[in-house]
């Protein structure tokens, strides 16, 4: 797809690389749901709220699909809206205490190495968001910055700090053992 920047001078002031033609919403939805909804769940530590947030973000995306569908990374848009929506709900609504990441997995699913969940719990949401975008969703620093509304340099610094902390917790899992 040819990337064009016809809307880069949007009112948002963000440099948004946009596609000439939007992807089909239904395709985007089906492809991104398993990945982005889980990414939001890991970031906020609440699968139920993440489901609600993802639905909310996707609903907004559909309502604005002529623009969102042309973005270089519409998944980043959805992730950010879902994250913001989740945070506003958490701020305003007294919800049951957040479930630790280690307990998020359902019994019928094979739990991942629990240490990763505990290590994620020790990160702030901001740092966890960067880790999720960079290492789970595989987005570039620029894409992560656009998705989170922060500078690429901030992505780099947060990623550095977060991975340093995670490494200290997870190094023992390296196949060759801790250094």
């Amino acid at each position, binding site marked *: 797809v040819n990337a064009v920047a016809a809307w880069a001078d949007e009112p948002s002031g963000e440099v948004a690389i946009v596609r000439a*033609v939007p992807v*089909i919403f239904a395709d985007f939805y089906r492809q991104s749901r398993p990945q982005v909804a889980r990414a939001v769940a890991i970031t906020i530590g609440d699968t139920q709220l993440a489901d609600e947030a993802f639905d909310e973000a996707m609903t907004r995306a559909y309502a604005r699909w002529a623009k969102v569908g042309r973005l270089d990374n519409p998944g980043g848009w959805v992730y950010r809206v879902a994250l*913001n929506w989740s945070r506003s709900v958490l701020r305003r609504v007294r919800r049951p205490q957040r479930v630790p990441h280690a307990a998020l997995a359902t019994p019928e699913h094979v739990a991942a190495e629990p240490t990763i969940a505990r290590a994620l719990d020790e990160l702030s949401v901001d740092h966890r968001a960067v880790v999720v975008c960079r290492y789970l969703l595989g987005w570039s620093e620029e894409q992560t910055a656009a998705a989170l509304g922060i500078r690429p340099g901030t992505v780099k610094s947060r990623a550095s700090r977060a991975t340093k902390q995670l490494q200290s917790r997870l190094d023992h899992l390296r196949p060759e053992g801790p250094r």
Partner: protein
Amino acid sequence: MNYFGDFLSDQLAGHARSLAVQDTPVGVITRQGARRRQRRRALITSSSLVAASVTAVGAAAVVQRNDSSTIVVGESDADAISQQTAIAESPTSESIGSSADANLEEPPLTPVASNLTWNRLDPDSTESLGSTAMFGPQGIVGNGPFYALSTSPGRGQETTPTLYRSTDAASWQRVTMPSYLPQSIAARGDQLYAVGTAPTGKASVFETAISSSLDGGSTWSQAVLPLNLDELRSDPMVDSVGTQSSIVAGESGLVLVTTTNITLDPADLVPNWPNSFFGGYAVTGAGLEILINPVYGDCPETQDEGYVGPPTFITSTGGSSSGAPASPSGCVVDPGEPTGVPWSNTGISAAVIEALLRPVQIWYSTDGRSFAEVAAPDTGVGPSGTVLTTNFGDGYVVAYERYGQLAADAGVTTVLASADGLNWTLTTPPFAGIRSMGEVNGQLSVFAQSFTAPGGIYQNNTSVWQTSNLTDWSSVSLPSLISANDGPGAILEPVSIGFGPSGVAVLGQIYLDPTRTPDGVRVTKDGLTLQMLNAGMINRLLDAESGEILSEFDMMKPSDGGGFVGRSDLGFVVEDPRNGNKVTFTWEEQSAATLKAIEPFENARAIVLHSSNGTDWSREWVDEIAGVDIGPAHHVAMDGTRVVIAVAEQQPVVDLAVGELPIPKPILLIGTPKE
């Protein structure tokens, strides 16, 4: 990525796989999104400024309202992306549901038999016109050769914008594109013209380019319109500058219309900018009106479709903006200190102020290479969201809709006509919400969408208006073509419209939404039934056994007769007025009942409406024409004699954990008028 990065990715992927996420059907999302879009438009139009979501953080979005003007509100980047230029997008972006049930007083229109003979083309087999989509409101331009901006042909996900040329409108050949994606193209014989925003080589800086080709799109020359965008951008109060343009070629020359949209960075004027959820500014003829972020007290939750909190703007003229829903009982709103700022005190340059207040600029050229700005009638202040051009007889018509600076200007559609492209006269048509227009058999034909909210029922009016003299207009309301046989709560969502010598064609989708029927959706609990009448945003409390209406209330406030106690984190709290018993209908219960009601009607069905004269309309199901189930409807265009529809086959639902989505198969349907 280093070793630890790879390791971390693997661990995160494993952790993610262990999480069970729900699988909401895409139809539920699209239905909610369409409703949201409809509601947002309705709310914006009716000045009920719910559109500012407290869930959002960040940059600005321009919305419109009737009572004051262009408003930049703190909203999510998400919202910001969509609002300002959405109406200049492809018609799909403007597709908003129109419900027969919401238009209860709309008399049904009896459709006539179609006069089109349809032929299905497989884009695999020929260099045909595009695959899954076409661009812009214009469709096919020129009277021969024909030109169209579309996607690349053939099957697949490849949707590169491609410019086509055809001498017979049947077989199409690709020609060279300008160095940018045009917003508009025009043709006069083999002279082809394009206008759009072209990159300058500097990040996020664009210029408005006009390009011409004298050899049918083989080679192009390009010039920059003297809009002085760099001067506007250099003002420290300016955050971004964009332009929208439309061009038309006539017998005497070319008419080009441009509008410049400026977003300010009013950090020194708006408190807590840009993180203020509700704060922002409004542009008026006198200056900037500052919208202040209200401070809330101990408010009960007012969550409604994701909008949380009392949706109230505080304006510099004092108090809340008119039309905003009342704050819930017990919610304290601090209006803060109103601070309107006259232009002279804003520090904004004269050039920027002039551009902010100017609806459009009209340019004329006889050769397509040099364009001179011509005087336009004084049509009031305010930039335009939509700019359109078309031929009309031997002359030209320019139409635009201001999103307003002063109360009387907001949402006003203006039509300018000229016989020579140099001298323009002003007419004000009897409709708002102009979306696209064209010439049909000597008539100017306009597709318009507007919203009203009589009695609180949000009503989307999609109409085709026609005139032969720019004074006397007639119209047909498209929802009047919905039939009772279409199903419960049928909603027509126009997707695309095309104009041409053989008439007007509308490609749309029919949704069935039983929640909008007069009976609505019911939830019963503890001897009481909550009847949700979604078409009117009204709720009734019924006796579960007898069905007796005990009370009626809307989404926000109690009725005089009682019954509605309030909204809590859990849902609606109601009270049986006969005995005082309180019952909470939770959001989950309401949502489950709604989802259950609409689940059988998840998929929309594509429909094509066609009229040769703008008065008598036929309607045909696209899947019956194509002979297969149809997925998303994309675009309709009209060439000299035919109706061209681009759609795609319905895709099967695929579990992405075990398989990949198949490539959607594009289909072209060609309708030829019967002899």
